[in-house]
C-alpha cells in the first residue's frame, strides 16, 4: 500500500528540501519504490539538491496543464534504484497547481510507488496547502527556535483541519517531528531550544533529530542527497529517521553531548 508523506514546516529555510531528498533517498536505499515531488513552484530546489537539474525536460506543472504524461516528467535517479524525482517549474507560479490536477497525479503515482514524498513550499498559502492536502503522514520539519516551533504548530493545525483526511473525516494525518539543524553546543548554551522543549509544545512523536552539520551544504553543492555521504552525521541521522518511518526502533543520536573516555579527555585537555 502506498503512502503519501508531506515534508512541511510553515517556515522557510528550516531544511524541508534537504529532508525530503535525504529521507526519500534513504527509503529507496531500503528497497522502497519512492518518488519525491517538488511542490515549491517557482523556486525549484529539489532537482538541484538531487543533482538532476540538467536532466529536466518536462515537469510536474507540464503534467498538470500541458498534457505531458507522468512518465515523460519523472526522472530516475542514476545512483539509487527505486528512486524517482518529479521536478517542478521555475517559470510558473503556484496557481498552476490545480486541485484536480494534483489529485490525478497523486492517484497515478500511488499505483506505482510505495512512498510519495511531497516537498512543500514555505508558508501556509495555496502551495503548502496543495502539498499537504493528500498526505497520509506528515513530517513536520522544525528548527530548535521559537519562531520555527510556532510555525510548525500552525501547520499541525492546518493538517488536522484542512487535509483531505480531515475533510473526509478519515483517520487523521499521522504526524512526525523532525528536528533539524540541531546545534548541540548552542542548545547547551541555552541559545536554542532543547528537544524536550520542542516536544512539550508540539506534543507529537519525534521521527528524528538531525544535527547542524557542514556536510549538508557540501552535499547539496555537489547535488547529492546527504545520506549518500557515509561520513556525514546528518546523513546517519536521516538514515535513522527513515528506519523509524519504516517501523524500526532506533535510538536517537546526536541529542546528548558525546561521552568522552578518560584518555580522550586527557588528550583534549593537553591539546
Amino acid at each position, binding site marked *: 500500500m502506498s503512502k503519501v508523506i508531506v515534508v512541511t514546516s510553515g517556515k522557510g529555510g528550516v531544511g524541508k528540501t534537504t529532508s525530503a531528498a535525504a529521507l526519500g533517498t534513504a527509503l529507496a536505499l531500503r528497497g522502497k519504490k519512492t518518488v519525491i515531488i517538488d511542490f515549491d513552484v517557482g523556486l525549484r530546489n529539489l532537482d538541484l539538491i538531487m543533482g538532476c537539474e540538467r536532466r529536466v525536460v518536462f515537469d510536474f506543472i507540464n503534467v498538470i496543464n500541458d498534457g505531458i504524461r507522468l512518465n515523460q516528467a519523472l526522472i530516475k535517479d542514476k545512483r539509487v534504484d527505486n528512486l524517482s524525482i518529479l521536478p517542478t517549474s521555475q517559470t510558473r507560479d503556484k496557481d498552476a497547481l490545480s486541485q484536480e490536477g494534483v489529485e490525478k497525479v497523486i492517484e497515478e503515482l500511488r499505483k506505482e510507488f510505495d512512498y510519495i514524498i511531497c516537498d512543500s513550499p514555505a508558508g*501556509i498559502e495555496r502551495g503548502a496547502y496543495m502539498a499537504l492536502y493528500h498526505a497520509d503522514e506528515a513530517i513536520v520539519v522544525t528548527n530548535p527556535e521559537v519562531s520555527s516551533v*510556532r510555525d510548525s*504548530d*500552525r501547520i*499541525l*493545525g*492546518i493538517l*488536522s*483541519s484542512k487535509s483531505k483526511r480531515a475533510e473526509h473525516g478519515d483517520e*487523521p494525518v499521522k504526524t512526525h517531528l523532525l528536528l533539524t539543524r540541531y546545534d548541540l553546543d548552542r542548545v547547551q548554551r541555552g541559545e536554542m531550544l532543547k528537544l524536550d522543549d520542542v516536544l*512539550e*509544545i508540539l*506534543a507529537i512523536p519525534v521521527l528524528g533529530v538531525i544535527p547542524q552539520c557542514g556536510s549538508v551544504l557540501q552535499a547539496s553543492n555537489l547535488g547529492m542527497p546527504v545520506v549518500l555521504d557515509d561520513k556525514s552525521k546528518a546523513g546517519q541521522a536521516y538514515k535513522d529517521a527513515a528506519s523509524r518511518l519504516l517501523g524500526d526502533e532506533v535510538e536517537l543520536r546526536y541529542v546528548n553531548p558525546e561521552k568522552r573516555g578518560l584518555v580522550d579527555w586527557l588528550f583534549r585537555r593537553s591539546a
Partner: protein
Amino acid sequence: MKLSAAEEASKTGGGLPFQIRGSLQTLLSLKLLRPDDPAFFTALLEKVAHAPDFFRNAPIVLDGAAVKAKSPDCLAQIVERLKEHRLVPVGLQNGSAEWNEAAVALGLAIFGAGGASTAEPAAVGRSGSAAKAASALKPAGKVIREPVRGGQQVVAADGDLVVMAPVSAGAEVAAAGHIHVYAPLRGRAFAGMNGDETAMIFCEQLHAELLSIAGIHQVSEEIDTRLLGKRVRATLAGEGLKLEPLP
C-alpha cells in the same frame, strides 16, 4: 429539619417582609421562525383555539434562536399582540445582544440559553419539535480532545468549553460559560463571551497570552510570574481578573 429561617422570623415577627425561593416552572416557549410572516398570528390563534384554557394567561418565553441575526424591530409588536390574545410574554431566550436589549426595554426577562423553559416547544410554523426536544437533552457545552493549534479557534457558543489537550500560542478558545483546559494553556481564552460575569477559566498550566472574562482581560505581561506554569483559576473581581493557584 428545623423551621426555615423565614418561618422562624415570621413567628417572631422580625426579619424580611418577604421570602425568596428558587422554583421550577415549565414554561411554554414560542420559537420565532418567520415573525414577519403576515399569517403569523392567524396561525398562532388557530393553534391556541384548540386548547383555549391551556393557553389563557399562560406565561410564554419567546425564543430568538432562529431570528437573532435579524433586527429585533418586530419584537414590540409581537409582545403587544400576544397580550391582546391573553398570552403573557415573560421573557426571551437564545437572543443576540441586540434582541436581549430590545427585550429588556419591553420589560421582558432574559432567560439563560437552553434554560428550564424549553420543555414544551410550541413552535409556530413547520419546525421539527422532536429534534428540538432531543437537542435539549444534550448539554450545550463542548469537549475538545485534540490540541488546539496556533491559528485555530474553538468556540462553545452556548455553554462551557472543556479542552483536554494543549492550547497553543496563537490559538483562541472561547465559551459562553466556563473554560477548562486540562493541559497547558498557551493561547488566548475568552470565558463568559456573552457577558456572563460569573464565568471562570481553569487551566492545568498557565502560560496564556491573554485571559478574558465577560470582556475584561489581562494580557500575559500582567500575569504574576509566580503563577506561570501553575494550575490556576481566573475569576472576575470588580474591574479586573483575579488569578489564584488551585490546590
